[in-house]
């Protein structure tokens, strides 16, 4: 079911690209994600984030090993 909903979201994205006034909003969205991506590249360097990533990777490995 969630793939149906995701497909629906893609349809809405397409719908938003169809009219001039909503297209501006559509073009603004990547800017936000660019800023966020840049911020994350900076943030992920600190020790705290590295530890958290490692903890997550370990958890995933453990879960896979359990199966």
């Amino acid at each position, binding site marked *: *079911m*969630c793939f*149906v909903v995701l497909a629906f979201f893609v*349809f*809405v994205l397409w719908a*938003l690209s169809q009219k001039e006034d909503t297209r501006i909003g559509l073009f603004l969205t990547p800017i*936000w994600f660019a800023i*966020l991506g840049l911020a994350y590249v900076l943030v992920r360097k600190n020790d705290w984030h590295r530890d958290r990533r490692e903890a*997550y990777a370990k958890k995933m490995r453990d879960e896979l090993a359990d199966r």
Partner: protein
Amino acid sequence: MSENIPPQEEKAPAARSSRSQPDSSPSEPEHLHRGLSIRHLRLIAIGGTIGTGLFLGSGKAISLAGPSIILVYAIIGFMLFFVMRAMGEVLLSNLKYRSFIDFTEDLLGPWAGFFTGWTYWFCWIVTVISEIVAIAGFALFWWPEMPLWVPASLAIVALLALNLPTVKAFGEIESWFALIKIAAIMMLVVVGLIMIATEFRTPTGSVASFANIWNDNGVFPTGFTGFVAGFQVAVFSFVGLEMVGTAAAETKDPEKNMPRAINTIPLRLMLFYVLSIVIIISVTPWSQITPGESPFVAMFMLVGVTMAAGIVNFVVLTSASSSANSGIYSTSRMLFSLAKERDSMARFGRLSSRKVPANALIFSCAFLLIAVGLLYAGTSIIEAFTMTTTLASLLFIFVWSMILFPISPTEDADRTSTQNLPTKCPAVSQCASSCWHFSSSCCGL
């Protein structure tokens, strides 16, 4: 999840209450919530589904799609109901999760927590900006001569003043706002039904009747493009729906409250969205609805009582303020939990002496000043409103997708493990296949 942060606290962005925590002492520092009662939560959850998107945006939506807008609202509501159920299932699968940010972080990795958390913060900033734009528009009803920056700035100051004192103040005011909104919709439905029953004749000569739904060039008068255009505007009406679930996650008994809160979503959406739109376009044929105006105010203007229209304008103003209020509440809490996860600056994780994340609140409010600039950048209020609501809709679609991702790969496994939960919908598979056909045929065109 880190060890030095008690996972029971300071997590969820949405409305919070007092899930009992036997193992934490009441004098614990950096304690955000408490002060929201079940009554508050219930009203906030109901009120949260009604906002400016419905009161103001529906005018544009109706003029784009005609009566088929009813179908548009129903389809979006149906789809989002599944997002909420998915969210409910994952939230209940582990009571450690206080919001969807927690489980995206835990199941997809720290990057997902960072992206979802910050995007959700930005979602609300953009939404509140559009609410403030709408507030400025509603103020024109009474003071057409007033410069637009005055109501916009006043709204920002009021939001700050409402949220700085205590959480309790927020809960109390917000539950009153919610009551007013619900009463307004009920009033619209009752007055509309009376107008239809008495075959009310509008100044343009049309007669109020349910037949207006299909008699004014059919149900799809603007064709497929118009129908699609309806989605552009209508999606925004549903932003904030996820708060229904996260608020329930904060209650004492989420296993009982969450399924109830989520399973009543369709009923609420039918009652508030579908019914009110049906009434509006029955009273006034869709082609006579002005896109830039609230059809709710317009319908009461028809009755000829300017007083009534004034009251409804007050209601729509209240509803915009209410959405802005809960938006600001959410953003400051979001920033607070991001700081706790060290995804944002530590100063946003500090509480004022009144247990309110004051720094986070002021930071979020500073962004709202963009609204004042936007009011003067475009040529019309509805233009600024459309732009910000589109951006907000897109950001919310990202967040809703992030809610769905944790269950996508393991969907079958989750379904069996949560089979006994009362959030199941009996006709899921049938609904799923029919709506799959719908989406794929639309995408194929």
